[in-house]
């Protein structure tokens, strides 16, 4: 599981605003890989995207469920193996 999968999934959503989030997350991941920002920055941003998706899921249990699961999986990988496996193929 890499962050690319989450970014692709966000781009596939009908809601164009999520494409913007995908684009910005991709840029953050690139900067993280380049060492310009720390692991903590990516973690915070992933956590907040997860919270935002949860807000939508409270209204509609199905909406964004698969993406929310990806965020959860990425956060587990980040906590256990660090940022490297997440951003391996980000460029």
């Amino acid at each position: 599981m890499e962050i690319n999968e989450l970014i692709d999934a966000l781009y596939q959503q009908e809601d164009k605003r999520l494409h913007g989030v995908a684009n910005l997350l991709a840029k953050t991941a690139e900067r993280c890989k380049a060492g310009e920002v720390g692991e903590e920055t990516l973690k915070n941003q992933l956590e907040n995207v997860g919270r935002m998706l949860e807000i939508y899921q409270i209204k509609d249990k199905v909406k964004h469920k698969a993406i929310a699961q990806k965020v959860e999986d990425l956060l587990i990988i980040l906590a256990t193996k660090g940022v490297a496996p997440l951003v391996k193929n980000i460029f």
Partner: protein
Amino acid sequence: MKKFISAIFITVLILSGCVKLARYDNETYKELTFTKVNVQELYDQKGQMDEVEWQIEAESILLHLKGMLEYEANKKKNEDTTKQLRLLKEIYESHIDDDEWDDLERELYTQTILLSFDGMIDSEKAKNKELF
């Protein structure tokens, strides 16, 4: 017959206890839309105005969000909205705790918080299909 009526009565009682959604509340809708605009304005001003003044304004909005949360938490059958607002407050707090924002962070923070407000506003609107 008495047993049948009692069974229906008990079923209705149980079902009414299962309904988790609160009714539409204009106060909630108004507070969410106004606060969304204030937060957007605040995020636009980050780095443009004096940092101390910005922090004072940010704390004032946080206090307002806490008040909104208290209001929602005290409404009956309102667990969903309360949870949504708690999540939104956590996102907001994490943003204002970050001292320096670059352009990318400003854009991502703005998108995330506005989408979160929109998610909550849509939820509230969905409770009143006649009005929206």
